[in-house]
């Protein structure tokens, strides 16, 4: 992930959160790794949210395949106070919007659609950049783990 695109993603999420009048907007990859978040996360366990969302999407994906669908691109969970709207962006990342009665499903869907298109463009740009870098940077840009030692690893478990 590059700084520039990361900032772009944050901006898109922020706009989505304001425009859709929602509480939290959250981006996760399909393996359950959190990518970015906007909104008030106090009292919400972000890691668990990411992992369960990915599990949820994976299970729904499995269901889709069973009945011969490619995917279900939108999931919606309605609660008494809060609701969760989950959608797939560019078939690779998961966009989660949490909202209450200050917003509505219609508004969220509309804004999510717009934001998804923007996110798709950003991810394409990101991919192209990564692709281009793979050749030229491979030798110059050493992974910080190239020189990791056994002592480094042992020290993680020292307590």
């Amino acid at each position: 992930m590059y700084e520039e695109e990361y900032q772009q993603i944050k901006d898109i999420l922020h706009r989505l959160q304001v425009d859709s009048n929602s509480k939290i907007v959250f981006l996760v990859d399909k393996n359950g790794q959190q990518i970015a978040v906007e909104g008030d996360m106090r009292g919400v366990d972000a890691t668990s949210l990411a992992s369960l969302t990915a599990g949820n999407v994976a299970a729904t994906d499995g269901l889709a395949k069973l009945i011969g669908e490619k995917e279900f691109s939108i999931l919606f969970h309605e609660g008494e106070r809060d609701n969760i709207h989950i959608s797939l962006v560019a078939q690779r990342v998961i966009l989660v919007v949490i909202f209450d009665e200050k917003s509505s499903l219609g508004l969220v869907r509309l804004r999510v659609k717009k934001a998804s298109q923007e996110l798709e463009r950003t991810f394409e740009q990101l991919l192209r950049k990564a692709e281009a870098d793979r050749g030229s940077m491979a030798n110059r840009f050493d992974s910080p783990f190239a020189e990791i030692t056994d002592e480094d690893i042992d020290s993680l478990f020292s307590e």
Partner: protein
Amino acid sequence: MTFINYAAREINCKIVYYGPGLCGKTTNLQWIYDKTNPQAKGKLISLATETDRTLFFDFLPLDLGTVRGFKTRFHLYTVPGQVFYDASRKLILKGVDGVVFVADSQEARMEANIESLQNLEKNLREQGYELKTVPYVLQFNKRDLPTALPADQMYGQLNFKGEPTFEAVAMNGTGVFDTLKAVAKLVLTELKKK
């Protein structure tokens, strides 16, 4: 797939505990959860049936500290061991960085161990991994039971590629952290190669 976030200086690795039903995968996680200090761990999420059998997965995020300035976080998952949950097991293996196979030492469960190991190999292959190359650790659990088979015999039947193998009693924590440490080490060593 290890997720390295250079902006936030974080590495996230996914470790999956695999094995036959009732072999003690969840018990391993429960012990790790109980014995880790509160700042280093997240919530232990257990998606289980009313009789406490794992239905989809258990999940425990663990912060181990920093390596070369990068915050190292391990996401530990277990699969549901029961044979008929195979579709769920496949999903959980997606994006895995390291696997722990928990074998049940009881003689009567040996067949189940072998079946589960073959299932692991097959499911990994479907996700594009090979058990031969993926960071992998073996654990013989329930060593305290009188019906436990000799470790040598189990090693002969279950060890796949000379992977690190540990004897454990997950109920009282014996061998649990040794197993985790070994797999974490393999995963981080793998990063070195990339």
